[in-house]
């Protein structure tokens, strides 16, 4: 599936997953996601640089599940594609997908920060 057509961040998915549309749940879920996903993105980028396929698959898989919980559709789909390419040892696909990680993460981070601000979440 083409990750470029997926939605960057869909709060409806988050509220459906948690069964809860309260500001507290949304800010807890998104702030926690932002913190944990940042670490996974760094690990994934390093794995891609080193071309360690098992790590690319592992980090993509974990990140994919987390994305699914909060409605980060575009990153989730990219992770699905990266995981599949790594498991199939598909070098050309990985070479094509990997450069998009940085831009997609940047878009998601912007959406997360904006949404958290809208819900009154204070980073300080």
């Amino acid at each position, binding site marked *: 599936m083409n990750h470029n057509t997926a939605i960057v961040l869909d709060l409806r998915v988050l509220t459906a*997953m*948690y*069964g809860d549309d309260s500001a507290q749940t949304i800010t807890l879920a998104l702030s*926690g996601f932002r913190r*944990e996903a940042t670490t996974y993105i760094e690990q994934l980028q390093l794995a891609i640089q080193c071309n360690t396929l098992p790590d690319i698959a592992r980090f993509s898989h974990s990140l994919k599940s*987390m994305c699914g*919980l909060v409605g980060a559709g575009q990153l989730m789909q990219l992770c699905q594609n990266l995981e599949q390419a790594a498991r199939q040892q598909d070098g050309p696909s990985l070479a094509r997908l990997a450069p998009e990680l940085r831009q997609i993460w940047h878009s998601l981070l912007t959406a997360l920060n904006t949404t958290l601000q809208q819900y009154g979440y204070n980073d300080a």
Partner: protein
Amino acid sequence: MLKVLFIDDDAYILSAYQRMLRSSPYQCSYLQQPTDLWQLLEFQPFDIVLADQQMPGITGTELLWQLQQRYPAVKRVLISGDLSFALKQQSPELTLNATLSKPCSKAALLECLQNHGRSDQYQHDK
């Protein structure tokens, strides 16, 4: 009260389950290190264990197979983002009480726990 144990190496996923079930009528525990399961079971009984498939060092199907052999009365639920692939990896003797697709919604978790809680109640009434 149904005693539930979730096992997943991802702390964020476990925190999500905790958030979803915070007001539920179940006594839920959360374990990030699958190898700690046996020590935990010595001191704390559980009615149902829900385990993620992809974990470092051991798969969910392998862990639940060991659980079946050592604690056969504890119910076993596998959680996976790719259930068809996960079920191909399982031992043929493993019997699962349920499977859940990851990511799990609150509704899916509650339905699963309600189904197993209900069957427990039926057995108590017999």
